[in-house]
């Protein structure tokens, strides 16, 4: 009886070890946190628009379609890297992308979009970063998928890479169904 009980610690040990091993080998980024806004409505905000004369009012913009919201700035170099993919979303996939210009110089931003191409349907200006805080943003670039009725379905922190581009496309297709 007692000898049989002795096997329990070794089994436990192997179990714990395999759990750790599993967590090590699966593709996972432990610093990646799901947004607290998932499945919630987009925060209400009103902001000056970089390209249009009228103000951007969030309650008027989010509604029927799937929209990508991308926080960017000209001073952020990963934003430049992901710009190709943002353009592909807008041009190839026909997805509306709203670009929130985070703590940036407006003239630089206009110039930047002129040079690199403008994939954004509208660019609200977040001068002091308060809009970003309402969205729970902690480091740009960040990209959100917002589905109809303005509900946030996904948040990606960091630049969009080829892999993430594919992932977001897949997610959008899933949401559409």
């Amino acid at each position: 009886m007692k000898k049989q009980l002795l096997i329990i610690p070794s089994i436990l040990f192997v179990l714990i070890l395999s759990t750790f091993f599993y967590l090590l080998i699966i593709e996972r980024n432990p610093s990646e946190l799901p947004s607290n806004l998932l499945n919630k409505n987009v925060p209400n905000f009103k902001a000056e628009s970089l390209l249009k004369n009228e103000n951007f009012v969030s309650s008027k913009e989010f509604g029927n379609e799937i929209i990508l919201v991308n926080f960017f700035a000209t001073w952020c170099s990963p934003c430049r890297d992901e710009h190709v993919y943002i353009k592909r979303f807008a041009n190839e996939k026909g997805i509306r992308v709203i670009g929130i210009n985070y703590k940036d110089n407006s003239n630089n931003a206009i110039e930047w979009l002129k040079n690199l191409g403008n994939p954004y349907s509208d660019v609200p200006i977040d001068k002091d970063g308060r809009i970003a805080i309402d969205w729970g943003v902690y480091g740009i670039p960040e990209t959100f998928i917002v589905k109809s009725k303005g509900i946030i379905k996904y948040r990606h922190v960091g630049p969009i890479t080829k892999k993430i581009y594919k992932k977001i496309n897949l997610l959008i297709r899933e949401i559409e169904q």
Partner: protein
Amino acid sequence: MTNKTFIIIISIFLIQFFLNSSYTVEPDEVLENQKQELRARDISKNVRCMICQNQSIDESNAPLAKDLRIIIRDKIKEGNNDKEIYKFLTDRYGDFILLKPPLKLSTLALWFLPFIFFIIGFFIVFVNNKKSKKI
């Protein structure tokens, strides 16, 4: 090393250690009302800097930490209580923004498993001790 220099070095370390209340809070952020400022600093010490992750916003000089410090101070000036301020933060950033995880149904294991393990361990030691005495 003589005894004297040793004592001096140790006391420098000790002074450093006790004075180590960080001063990342910039002068323009500080509220005039001291009571409110103290409250702001207390809250800031419990709020995680989401970029640096293991620092509080009170210690961090990341821009987001500064923004949050200012928001906390604005909210205090507007007359919000601590609970409302924490709710504002967790609504946006989740419980992760609090350095101390709140006691919730989902965190029960986190808070109480150590005690349970302690009791089990104590029990095992107690039983084994009794057995060994018999022999």
